[in-house]
C-alpha cells in the first residue's frame, strides 16, 4: 500500500509560508517566542549556572584536584559559617553597586563600561572631602558630604563620555574604557606626589581619621553600613525603573532609540542623566569601600570591581533586585575561590574564569529559552 495521496481534483496545497521552508529535516524547527516570561529568564540563569559549574568541574579536574573537594572548599569559603557568610556580604557590597551602575545604564542601551573608573573617581572624591572637611560635625553630616562628593565625582567622570556621546555621537564603550585608564594614571600621579603619605614609599595616602570610618553593622565583622546603603539603592533603582516616568523613558530608549525619538524623548538629555546616575552609583561604591574597608586611598582598592559589576548586571538580566542576589553569589565565589586555593592549591584566579564562563553560558541559555521547538504537525 502506498501512502494516501491527494486526489488530483482536491483542494490545492496551501501556499507554504516562508517560515515553513526553514523546517529542518525530521519535521521540526525553532520558533521564536513573542514573549519570554520572567520564569523562563530565571530558568535560563539556572541553566547557565549549571553549565558553568560543569565547565568549572572540568577545569578543576584538569588542574589535578578533586571536584567534590574543590566545590566543598568553594562553598565553605563562601557561606560555610557565619564569619565567611558575613565576609561574603562584605565582598558583595561594592559589587551590588557596580552591578547596579551597569544595569541602570544598560537598560537605557547605554554601554557604560566605565564603572571601574567611576568607582575610583568616587573614592578620590570621598578621600578629598574627608581630608578637607574632616572636622564637620555632627558625624552623619560628614558622611553625607563624603558620599555626596563621591556620587558627584563618579557622575562627573561618567559625564565626559555621555556629553561626548550626546553631542558628537562618540562611542561611549570606547570612551568609558579609555577613561578607566586615564583616571588610574591620574590617581597614580596624585598618590606619587600631592596625596602621598609622607612616611611611606608606597603609593598610598595617609590613613583616614577614625571618625570617617563607616560604622560596622556587627562588632565582630567587617560588614559595614555600605551593604545596607547598596541594598537600599538597589530598591530605589528598581522603583525608578519600574514606577517612574524617567524609568519608562529609560526602558523605552533601551528598546528602541528611534521610537523614543518619535515619542518626543530628549535623547541627548536622557543619555546624560542616565550616565550621571550610573556614574554616581559607581562613585558611591568607591566611597563605601574607602570609608568602610580600606581607610586609605591606594591603587588596588578596586581590582576589576567595575568589570565584575558588568558581568553581574548581565547575569542578573539587568534586573536591579536580581543584581543584589547575583552580587552576593559572586562575592561568595570570590571568597570561596581563595579558600579553594588554600585547600587544593588551584589558583584563586579560577574565579575569573568562572565569572567569564558563567556570563557566556547564561547569555546563550537566555537566547535558548526564547525559542521553542515546533514539530511539523503543530505548524500553523
Amino acid at each position, binding site marked *: 500500500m502506498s501512502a494516501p495521496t491527494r486526489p488530483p481534483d482536491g483542494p490545492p496545497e496551501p501556499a507554504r509560508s516562508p517560515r515553513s521552508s526553514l523546517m529542518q529535516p525530521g519535521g521540526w524547527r525553532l520558533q521564536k517566542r513573542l514573549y519570554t516570561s520572567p520564569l523562563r529568564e530565571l530558568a535560563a540563569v539556572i541553566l547557565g549556572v549549571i553549565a558553568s559549574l560543569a565547565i568549572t568541574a572540568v577545569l578543576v579536574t584538569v588542574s589535578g584536584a578533586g571536584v567534590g573537594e574543590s566545590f566543598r572548599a568553594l562553598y565553605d569559603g563562601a557561606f560555610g559559617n557565619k564569619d565567611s557568610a558575613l565576609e561574603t556580604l562584605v565582598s558583595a557590597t561594592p559589587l551590588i553597586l557596580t552591578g547596579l551602575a551597569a544595569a541602570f545604564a544598560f537598560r537605557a542601551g547605554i554601554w557604560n563600561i566605565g564603572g571601574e573608573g567611576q568607582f575610583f573617581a568616587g573614592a578620590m572624591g570621598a578621600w578629598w572631602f574627608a581630608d578637607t572637611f574632616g572636622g564637620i560635625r555632627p558625624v552623619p553630616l560628614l558622611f553625607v558630604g563624603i558620599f555626596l562628593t563621591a556620587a558627584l565625582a563618579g557622575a562627573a567622570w561618567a559625564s565626559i563620555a555621555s556629553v561626548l556621546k550626546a553631542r558628537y555621537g562618540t562611542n561611549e564603550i*570606547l570612551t568609558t574604557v579609555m*577613561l578607566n585608564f586615564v583616571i588610574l594614571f591620574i590617581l597614580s600621579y596624585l598618590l606619587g606626589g600631592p596625596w602621598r603619605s609622607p612616611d611611606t614609599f608606597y603609593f598610598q595616602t595617609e590613613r583616614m581619621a577614625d571618625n570617617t570610618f563607616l560604622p560596622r553593622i556587627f562588632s565582630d565583622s567587617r560588614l559595614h553600613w555600605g551593604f545596607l546603603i547598596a541594598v537600599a539603592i538597589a530598591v530605589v533603582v528598581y522603583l525608578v525603573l519600574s514606577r517612574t516616568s524617567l524609568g519608562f523613558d529609560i526602558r523605552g530608549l533601551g528598546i528602541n532609540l528611534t521610537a523614543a525619538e518619535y515619542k518626543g524623548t530628549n535623547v541627548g538629555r536622557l543619555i546624560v542623566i542616565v550616565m550621571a546616575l550610573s556614574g554616581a552609583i559607581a562613585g558611591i561604591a568607591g566611597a563605601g569601600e574607602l570609608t568602610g574597608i580600606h581607610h586609605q586611598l591606594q591603587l588596588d582598592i578596586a581590582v576589576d570591581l567595575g568589570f565584575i559589576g558588568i558581568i553581574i548586571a*548581565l547575569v542578573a538580566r539587568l534586573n536591579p533586585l536580581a543584581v543584589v542576589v547575583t552580587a552576593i553569589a559572586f562575592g561568595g565565589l570570590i571568597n570561596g575561590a581563595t579558600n579553594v586555593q588554600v585547600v587544593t592549591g588551584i589558583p584563586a584566579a579560577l574565579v575569573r574564569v568562572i565569572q567569564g564562563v558563567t556570563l557566556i553560558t547564561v547569555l546563550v541559555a537566555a537566547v535558548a529559552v526564547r525559542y521553542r521547538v515546533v514539530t511539523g504537525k503543530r505548524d500553523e
Partner: protein
Amino acid sequence: MSDIWTEGFILGALVSTVRIATPLLLAALGELVAESSGILNLSIEGTMTLGAFTGFLVAFETENLWLGVLAAAAGGAAMALIMAFMAATVKINQVVAGLALNILGIGLAFFWFRSSFQGGSSLDIPNVKTFQFVEIPLLSSIPWVGEILFTQHWLTYFAVLMVPVLWLFLNKTRYGLELRSIGHNPEAVDMRGINVVPRQYAAVVFGGIMAGLAGAFLSLASTGLFFPQVAAGRGWIALALVIFGGWRSSWIFIGALFFGLIDATQLSLQATDIDLPYQLLLALPFVLTIIALVLNRDRSRSPLSLAIPYHRGER
C-alpha cells in the same frame, strides 16, 4: 629643554614608533575584516591577552618561538570561534558577547598563567628569548630610514604587508566585496545564494588570529614575558583605530603609526629628565584616543549592518 631633541632621541623615538604600532596595526586590521562582515568583535583586548599567553606558554615549554606564534594564532582563533558562535549563530547582542569574551579571555590567561608558573620566586620571572630584529639586506644600511623601517621584527613586516593585501582583498576580490556586502546588507547577499554565517565565521576567526598575533608580538617579540596586563588597553585602542581609520586599511595604518609616535615620544620623554609626571605621559595615548574619536565623526564608511544580528526570514 632644547637639548632633549637630539638626533639620538628622535631616531630612538622613530624606531620605537614602528615597533609600538605593530600590535595595534595587527589587531586593528583583523578587526577591520571582522567588522566588514558586520560583526563587531569587542573582545580584542581579551583575545590579545590570551594569544600573548598561549604563545608565551608554548614558546616557554618548547623553546621554539615559531610554535609559540602558532599557539598565539590558535588561541586567538579559538576565542574568535566563541565570538562567532555567539554573534552569528546564537545572535546574542554583539556588544554583550564581546564584553563577555573579553572577561573570559583575560581571566583564562590569568588563571592558566598562575596554574602553569606557580611557586616560582618573584626574582625568577619566567621569560623567553625574544625574536631578533630582521635586517632587510641593503635597505637596512640606509642611514636613518634603514634603522627606522628596515630593522624590525618579522611580525612588523607582516603587519605592514597586510595593509595593501587587505585593501586588495576588500576592494578588488570577489570574496572580499561579498564580505563587505554582508556587512552592509546580509539579506541581499543571502538571497543571492551566498551562505552568510560561514563567511562571518571566517571573517571573525581571521580577526581573532590577527589579535592573537598581536598578543604574540607583545610576549614573544617585544617583552619576552607574560603578565595579565600585557595588552594594556591596546585592544581597545585598536578598536578605536578602525573607527578612526574609517574602515580603510590605509588610514588604519596611518592611525597606528600616529599612536606609535605618540607613545614612543612619551616613552622617550620619560627617559629624559624633563619635569613632567610620567603618569600624565602614560595617560596621553588614551586621552588622544578620545580626542581622535571626537574629531573623526565620519561614520559614512561604517558597515551598515555592523553589530546588527542577521536573522534569516525574520523581517
